[in-house]
């Protein structure tokens, strides 16, 4: 597994030293055009990253993001796309004055024959001091790379299978599930 702070191959960190940076790759058995198209439309992001509550496109290269953090905390900020090369790379960063400074990029390149295409996601956050920073740190957990990997894998699942694997909503013999059964009867 790629660890947080793994070396970024193409660019140095936008937020040296004080931020959290994760670089994580996955290979997806779909045409590169389909993978690029998904990321080109930021309103798709909430479908594979459930901490993003909504993304509203506000301009040619800008969007307004709302993210939800543990403890019912929300944070909103404006994001601009500063690099967009079809089927190669999309990079974005939050605009001046955002509560949570953050940036990200996604790079696409063909894998060896019959193996699909490689997608490399880089995300960086600078948790601010105070409640929002604490909530963000809690959201990302002890191993931010694992937190981000989960969503990258959900993207792969969505692209390859049309759905994301889940057990949410399945029955069990745990007490809350039994209570639900009693209520429904």
């Amino acid at each position: 597994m790629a660890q947080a702070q793994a070396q970024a191959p193409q660019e140095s960190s936008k937020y040296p030293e004080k931020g959290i940076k994760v670089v994580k790759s996955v290979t997806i058995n779909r045409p590169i055009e389909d993978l690029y198209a998904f990321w080109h439309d930021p309103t798709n992001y909430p479908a594979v990253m459930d901490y993003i509550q909504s993304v509203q496109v506000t301009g040619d290269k800008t969007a307004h993001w709302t993210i939800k953090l543990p403890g019912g905390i929300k944070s909103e900020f404006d994001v601009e796309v500063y690099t967009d090369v079809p089927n190669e790379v999309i990079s974005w960063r939050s605009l001046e004055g955002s509560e949570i400074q953050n940036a990200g990029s996604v790079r696409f390149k063909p894998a060896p024959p019959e193996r699909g295409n490689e997608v490399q996601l880089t995300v960086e956050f600078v948790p601010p001091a105070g409640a929002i920073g604490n909530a963000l740190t809690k959201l990302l957990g002890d191993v931010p790379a694992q937190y981000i990997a989960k969503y990258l894998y959900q993207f792969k699942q969505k692209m390859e299978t049309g759905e994301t694997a889940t057990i949410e909503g399945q029955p069990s013999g745990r007490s809350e599930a039994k209570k639900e059964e009693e209520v429904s009867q």
Partner: protein
Amino acid sequence: MRAVTFQGKGHMQVDTVPDPKIINPRDSIVQITSSCICGSDLHLYDGYIPTVEHGDIMGHEFMGVIVETGSAVKNLKVGDRVIVPFTIACGECYYCKHDLHSLCDNSNPNAVAAEAMYGYSPAGLFGYSHLFGGYAGGQAEYARVPFSDVGCFKIPDDLTDDQTVFLTDIYPTGFMAAENCDIKPGDTVAIWGCGPVGQFAIRSAYLLGAKQVVAIDRVPERMDMARQGNAETLNYEEDDIIDALKEMTGGRGPDSVIDAVGMEAHGTGVGFLYDRLTQATMMQTDRPTALRQVLQACRKGGTVSIPGVYGGIIDKIPMGAAFNKGLTFKMGQTHVQPLLPKLMQYIQNGDIDPSFVITHRVPLERAPEMYKTFREKEDGCIKVVLKPDMVA
């Protein structure tokens, strides 16, 4: 519905739980007509598999009738009679496209945790641990089958449940164990463990051209069943296994060896006592007593096939024997889906009737006591089939 749930080490219970529902577009719901207890369920029952949670619904060998299909399922319809492979696989990823369905990239919702444990995540499994996704199992009246368009395999009406339910796991698992031996004409295959997987490995080894199959166990009725499959048998409590195998093969040793025992092996001598102690104290997670003997017994340049389940860390494996004899290892959870057409053909041709392995057919409600009977190998128990529609 009624379902068998895990209530802690050594404690299964039949509970009333909510009915499963369609969650994803490729799901189907199956009303279960037969569901078995597997040897690997005993590893969960005995508390050796981490991340099994209180209240989890058990069972991964089940079949039944489709009662509901998700919006994206086009190849199944309500009323179809199907078996459900224990390995959940998407059919679309690199591994599924290469017939390696138990390594599916997309079916484990908990892939990140499995990756931390194993480096990469294998497929999700029914009724197993949360490391493999925590999918509710099929020792129940109904089950949700994810990726059902790839998972459900239709069964013709002229074949019974007893003949086909083992297509879910143990028959393909025994077959893949034999296939992994790469059997050549004249070969001798030695198989540790005469449980259900060992029994299917014996018969599959002959179907694939083995000249001689030697099966190793200590339980009389299991050894009898092995002999009915034309295996010669050895008792590890009475025979010197390594010497006996040499004598049975003109000093050459078996060409391939199968560990159909796995992580809770029984054995004799200092090695076994060491394993019991270190497993009980969590110094190792698995008890590889059989595997050690398997490696010692295999001839030079031979193949070691491991269908028996291992979960974690093992100790004191004679790697020098494996290395210096140039052994090949083949192992893993079974790639059930791609084997099914071929194995169904064997059944329809009459080459094998998998129902031979069944010793107990009981109502679902009796599952908790049957776990104990099966673990203790009491009452001649080799394979239990639970029947949700049988009156208790």
